C-alpha cells in the first residue's frame, strides 16, 4: 500500500481525550425497578394480563398474545377453583367421594404435561411453558360449565337437569377443544394436526366427564 507508507501524526494535533468510558451502571436498584412500586400496581398489572388472556380464550382468534407472554397464574386459579368445586361429590359412600382435590389437580397438570411432551415429540415449535399456559387457560369454559352445573343441581337433580347439564358441558367441552386447537395446532407441521388434537380432545373429555358425573352429597 504505497499510499499509506507515510502516515504519521503531525506534531501540532494533540492526541487527547477521555479514557473513561461511561458504562451503563448495573446497580441493583435500577435493574429491579418494579420493586419500589406500590403493591397495588404490581397486582393490577398481573390481573390485567390474566384478564386479557381470559378474553382471548372466550373469543378465540388467531392472536399470539397468549403465547408470547405466557404466565401460569390463570391456569392455577382455574385449576384450584375447579378442584374445589368438584370435591367430595359422590352418591352415598363415605369412603370413596368423588374426585378429591389432589386427584383433579394431578389429572389437569399431568395431562397438560403429557400433551405438551407429545406435541413437542411430534415436532412442534412451541415451548413447554407456552403449551402449559394455553392448555391451562382453555379450562376456563369448563370451569364456567361447572358453575352452571352446580347451580342447576341446586334447583333439582332429575332427568331434565341432567339433559341441561349434558348440553352445557358438551358445548363448553367443544369450546375448550376448539380454543386450544386454535392456539396449539398452528405450531405443528400441517399434516400432523390431527395427531396433536386427539390427546387434547381426550384430556378435555376426561375433565368434562368428571364435571358431568358430579353429584353433590
Amino acid at each position, binding site marked *: 500500500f504505497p499510499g499509506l507508507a507515510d502516515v504519521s501524526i503531525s506534531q501540532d494535533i494533540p492526541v487527547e481525550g477521555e*479514557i*473513561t*468510558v*461511561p*458504562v451503563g*451502571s*448495573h*446497580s441493583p436498584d435500577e435493574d429491579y425497578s418494579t420493586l419500589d412500586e406500590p403493591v397495588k400496581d404490581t397486582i393490577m398489572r398481573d390481573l390485567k394480563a390474566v384478564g386479557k388472556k381470559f378474553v382471548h380464550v372466550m373469543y378465540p382468534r388467531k392472536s399470539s398474545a397468549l403465547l408470547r407472554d405466557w404466565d401460569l397464574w390463570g391456569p392455577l386459579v382455574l385449576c384450584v377453583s375447579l378442584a374445589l368445586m368438584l370435591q367430595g361429590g359422590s*352418591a352415598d*359412600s363415605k*369412603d*370413596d367421594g368423588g*374426585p*378429591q382435590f389432589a*386427584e383433579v389437580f394431578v*389429572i389437569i397438570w399431568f395431562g397438560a404435561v403429557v400433551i405438551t*411432551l*407429545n406435541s*413437542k*415429540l*411430534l*415436532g412442534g415449535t412451541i415451548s413447554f411453558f407456552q403449551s402449559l399456559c394455553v392448555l391451562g387457560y382453555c379450562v376456563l369454559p369448563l370451569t364456567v360449565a361447572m358453575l352452571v352445573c352446580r347451580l342447576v343441581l341446586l334447583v333439582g337433580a332429575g332427568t331434565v337437569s341432567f339433559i341441561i347439564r349434558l348440553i352445557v358441558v358438551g358445548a363448553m367441552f367443544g369450546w375448550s377443544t376448539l380454543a386450544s386447537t386454535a392456539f396449539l395446532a398452528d405450531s405443528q407441521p400441517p*399434516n*400432523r394436526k*390431527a*395427531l396433536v388434537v*386427539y*390427546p387434547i380432545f*381426550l384430556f378435555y*373429555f*376426561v375433565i368434562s*366427564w368428571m364435571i358431568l*358425573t358430579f353429584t353433590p352429597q
Partner: protein
Amino acid sequence: QGGGSAVIDMENMDDTSGSSFEDMGEMHQRMKEEEEEEAEGEAGAGEEEDGEFLGMKGLRGQLGRQVADQMWQVGKRQASRAFSLYANIDILRPYFDVEPVQVRARLLESMIPVKMINFPQKIAGELYGPLMLVFTLVAILLHGMKTSDTIIREGTLMGTAIGTCFGYWLGVSSFMYFLAYLCNAQITMVQMLSLLGYGLFGHCITLFVTYNIHFHSLFYIFWLVVGGLSTLRMVAVLVSRTVGHTQRLILCGALAALHMLFLLYLHFAYHKVVEGILDTLEGPNMPPFQRVARDIPVVSNAVLNTTAKAIALTL
C-alpha cells in the same frame, strides 16, 4: 459511588464482603479484568515489602472470590451436562414420527390376521398409537366404572384406571419380551410395546360398545370375535418371528391367554351387572344377580364361578 468507569480503582474494592454465588455469574467478566490488574499490583507490592503484601485483605478476598467463581463454573457445567443427558426428550423423538394416515392404517391392520407366517412380518416401532390407545382405554374404563357405581376402597377411580391400563401395557410387554428372549424370537422391546399397544384397539372397541349396551351374550360375541381377531394378529406376527414348535407354542399361548383374560377381567370387574340377563342364558340353577355396589376382590370369585357356569350353559 456509581461504577461508571471501566477503570477500577483497586483500593476502593470491597474486600470484606463475602463472595455470594448469586453475584458470581455477573462478576465473572469483571473478575477477569480485575485479575490482570491485581496480578500486576501484587507483583509490584511483593517486590517492595518482603513478608507482607500491601493488600493482604485484598489478596484473601480475591482468592476467595476466585475459588467461589470456579466452583460456580464447574457446578454449572456439570448440571447442564446431566440435564442434557437425562432430560433429553429427543431420545424418544424417532418413535413419534408418524402421519395420521399411518396411524389409521395400523389401527385397521391390527384387526386383520396375517396369513404368511413363514416370513418374518414387519412391526413398526412406533409409540404414539399405543400411547393414545392406552389413554383412550383409561377414559373408557372410567366411564364404565362410573356408570356401574364401582366403589374402590383404597385408592381412587382415576388411579385404578390408569394403574390397570398402564400396568397391563408395560407389564405384559415386559413379560412377553422376556419370554421372547427365552424362546429366541426376533423382536425388540419397542416392537413388543407397539404390538401389544395396537392390540388394545380391539379392547377399546369391545368395552366401548358393551359398557353402553348391557347384554352379556353381546359381550361374549364381541369378546370372541374382536378380541380373537386382534389376538390372532398378534400371535401370527410373533409366530412369524420365532423358530421351533415349542417356542411358538409357549409364546402364542401366553400372549393369547393374557390378552383374552384381560378383556374378560375389564368387563366383569368394572361393569354393572344388569338384572335379568338370565333371559338370554335360561338357566334354572343360576342365582339371581343383584344390582349392588360391591368390592372388587369379592366380586372376582363370584365372577369366575358365574362365568364358568355361563360358558357351560351356552355350550
